[in-house]
């Protein structure tokens, strides 16, 4: 309904002023290079905002349809490139759901451990970036230092620092190396120390509190409507965590808490992520203990299923036996023959529920591989968090959504 035309008075009372339109991004330092916001500003207040994603649209879904099921892994690495292993795990689990197979226990624990390390690096980056964008550069660099440790541990296991492409349908590309524990166990307390030190600069500091508390508020109902998930949803007070609500891998056996916030403001999101780092550390410690308990040589003591129709045979077999060579060739040439069907596989990634809607028509290539990038949903909700607030509030709000271009624009 159009309001009744009452334009005669109000316009005359004040000096005519036009709202200023400001283009922010995509190369704006706070927009992570991939978002453009068109702002209508009244002074410093944001009257209206048009958030335009898509500057990092790289055709993930189209590219997935081109290659085999396995060739999607490098692309998944680059979805949420701050926590690549979680995407690897998410995609592998979705395809495994479609195939109806389960990975041996060691493989599951390995996925949990590396995945949670990835989550830590994600949250370190996000929280560090919030601090940096608020002008506190030092904690950011401290967090980066800690993140390097995580990268170095992951490099030892997977052979790459960031884009690991490590997990496979039906397992992982390799066994954990002997250094797994040596690299992780002494690191974790150090890492928590760094986190605490960074927080000591921020959490009691009124400048930081004023900048984050009451800023970028998302209500419970609205968050659900918008499809928000992960830390953004939990900050509103909803304790939805796929690891708890629909446990996968070995999360059901782990003792960890789901941190939730109170108001859904930037501070809550910061705190939820900070707490999740601590919970992830707990999960890793427990998983390492569980890993130790696996009896060598038992069926559990494998990272991959042994079906040659799904997992490449061991290299030794490929070099020396025709059976291995054939299986190897079939998988390389044609890919895994995934039966027709469609599933929605979802896991808790760094930013929330990472869903893969996979459609197979049989054969080696995905028919459709849709990614539900959690931050695409959160970013949509950002519109309401930003509107009516001040220009400077965009930065922590946007930062705490942890918009990752690869996952958002795909």
């Amino acid at each position, binding site marked *: 309904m159009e309001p009744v035309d009452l334009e005669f008075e109000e316009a005359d009372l004040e000096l005519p002023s036009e709202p200023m339109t400001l283009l922010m991004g995509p190369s704006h330092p706070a927009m992570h290079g991939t978002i453009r916001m068109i702002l209508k500003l009244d002074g410093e207040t944001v009257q209206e905002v048009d958030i335009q994603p898509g500057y990092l649209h790289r055709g993930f879904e189209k590219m997935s349809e081109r290659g085999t099921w396995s060739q999607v892994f490098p692309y998944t690495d680059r979805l949420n490139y701050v926590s690549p292993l979680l995407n690897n795990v998410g995609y592998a689990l979705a395809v495994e759901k479609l195939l109806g197979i389960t990975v041996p226990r060691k493989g599951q624990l390995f996925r949990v451990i590396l995945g949670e390390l990835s989550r830590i690096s994600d949250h370190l980056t996000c929280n560090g970036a919030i601090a940096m964008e608020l002008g506190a550069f030092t904690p950011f660099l401290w967090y980066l230092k800690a993140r390097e440790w995580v990268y170095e541990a992951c490099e030892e296991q997977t052979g790459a620092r960031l884009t690991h492409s490590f997990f496979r349908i039906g397992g992982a590309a390799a066994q954990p190396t002997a250094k797994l524990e040596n690299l992780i166990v002494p690191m974790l307390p150090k890492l928590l120390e760094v986190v605490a030190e960074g927080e000591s600069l921020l959490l009691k500091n009124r400048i930081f509190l004023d900048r984050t508390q009451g800023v970028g508020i998302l209500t419970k109902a609205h968050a659900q409507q918008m499809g928000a998930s992960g830390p953004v949803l939990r900050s509103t007070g909803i304790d939805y965590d796929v690891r708890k609500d629909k446990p996968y891998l070995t999360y059901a056996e782990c003792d960890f808490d789901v941190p939730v916030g109170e108001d859904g403001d930037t501070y809550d999101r910061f705190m939820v992520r900070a707490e999740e780092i601590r919970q992830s550390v707990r999960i890793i410690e427990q998983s390492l203990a569980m890993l130790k308990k696996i009896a060598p040589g038992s069926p559990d003591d494998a990272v991959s299923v042994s*079906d*040659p*129709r799904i997992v490449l*045979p061991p290299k030794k*077999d490929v*070099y*020396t*036996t*025709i*059976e*291995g*060579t*054939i*299986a*190897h*060739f*079939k998988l390389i*040439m*044609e890919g895994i*023959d995934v039966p027709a069907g469609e599933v929605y596989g979802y896991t808790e990634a760094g930013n929330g529920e990472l869903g893969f809607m996979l459609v197979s028509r049989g054969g080696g290539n995905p028919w459709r591989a849709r990614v539900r990038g959690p931050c695409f949903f959160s970013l949509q909700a950002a519109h309401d968090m930003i509107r009516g607030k001040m220009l400077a509030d965009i930065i922590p709000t946007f930062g705490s959504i942890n918009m990752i271009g690869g996952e958002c624009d795909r």
Partner: protein
Amino acid sequence: MPTFKLDDREIPFEKGETIIQAAHRQGIEIPHYCWHPGLSIAANCRMCLVEVEPPPGQRAMMLDILTWDAAKNDYVVDRKPKLQPACQLAASDGMVVRSESSHFVKNTRAHVQEFLLANHPVDCPICDQAGECKLQDYYLSQQHTPKRMLDEPVHKPKAVPFGDTIVYDAERCITCTRCIRVCDELAGDHMLDLRERGNRNEVVLAPGRKLEGDYTLMTEHVCPVGALTSRHFRFKARVWTLKETPSICTGCATGCNMWVDVDPREERAYRNRPRDNAAVNKYWMCDDGMMTYLRETERRVLEASARGDAGRTKLTVDQAIERAAAALKGVPKGWLAVLLSAQASSEDNFVMVEFARQLGAPLYLSAKAGWKGDKILRSEDQNPNRAGAVAVANNAKVGTMKDLLHAVSAGQVQAVVGLGTDSDAEGDALATLGRVSDVVLLASHDGPLAARSTVLLPAASWLEAPGSFMNVRGIAQPFAKALPPKGDAVPAWDLVARLGRAMELDLKYRKFKEVRAAMAVITPAANPEKSSTADATAPAVQPQTTA
């Protein structure tokens, strides 16, 4: 129609058909190596074994066997039914056959497959069959267990030359005898045979012979594994990178259906393979037809040119069309001759006929001279589309090349517009063409006519444009575009249409679809959709009738 039951599915069959045939017709594949729909039954690979349930009231024939019990770590006595080869077992009404649903069958197939692989060399990386090898297919679908035999496999001769076209690898051979049967039954020449027994068994040439004749490549085509490889194709490409396109052989007037395998990355054709069509070529092609893909790139015309006083000058296609149009415009009505081509597609010829009709020009037909045909597939006429060219002329008189040359010598022709470059007339006779002031030629390859043209336009070859051929028996068959045109080449019908438009004729064709549609209306006989008996893309499901 009588039916039998295969894995709970009713399969209709005709009397005398075997189970595998009837299932094959329904699109169900029962694993097999030695059986081939076009060949006689050998039943030696044992891959197609199926379980046949006894008729009601009768006891199943059971055999005592030993099976390995992992729990007891020993063999235990067990029983299994006697399985039957589906390729040899004639179907009977109401029969109940179990293939995939029987664990006995599955178990047996796994073991047959394992047995076939027992001595197989680790050759996939160097084997050209990898990617279309039945051993690979059935390993994953039937066996998928790791190797158990750890001994050194039996070594047999490798890289044995079987004539000029085929190389044989005995280690890869599963002695299914398909190649022997092809020689016997298709070529009618017993050049190959088996020798030795058991794991020494191998295919050998008949003493003093080598693999020769016109159908040697069919031995490679039927080989389900990588034992026989073609010298032309081996080590050149990998089959899984190739893309197949349905096409028609241009070698002779038989019009054998074939697949052309091209590498889309390199835009190059790597081989031809027969495409099953019961009405035309059944499952076969001759060696010359298989090699036509090589001819496609030889002596190509890739740019437009015109002959001037100082030799040929290169032109763009548009310039050449302009020049040709300018020359042809001055030719008085009736003094222009239009030359159709028995090598070009019906669509090209059709537009050419339209062109001629609008100018009132008489039609002639250029064609290759004949070659030696045989009773199997090879037609004596080397031109794939003589019938089509005549059909699109739509009852207009089509003179031969000789007629044209007569007309030229009689001074009745001032200019010629022609398709193709082939001529059945010899060199000296062709020299007569020198009397004609303008010879505009649209050719994909260089040849006797192209050399005598005054304006030469580059046409797309048969792999570079879609079209259709009508074979000697009057069956019009479409073929698809497999490669993008090379150089400046443009489909011939398009060139004719552009030339016509440059001459202010009414030739509106801009898309291939439009040409095909017009052809379907004006000369329905030549339209492949109407008269083709087999869909170009559908798999062969016709029962075989080969002897």
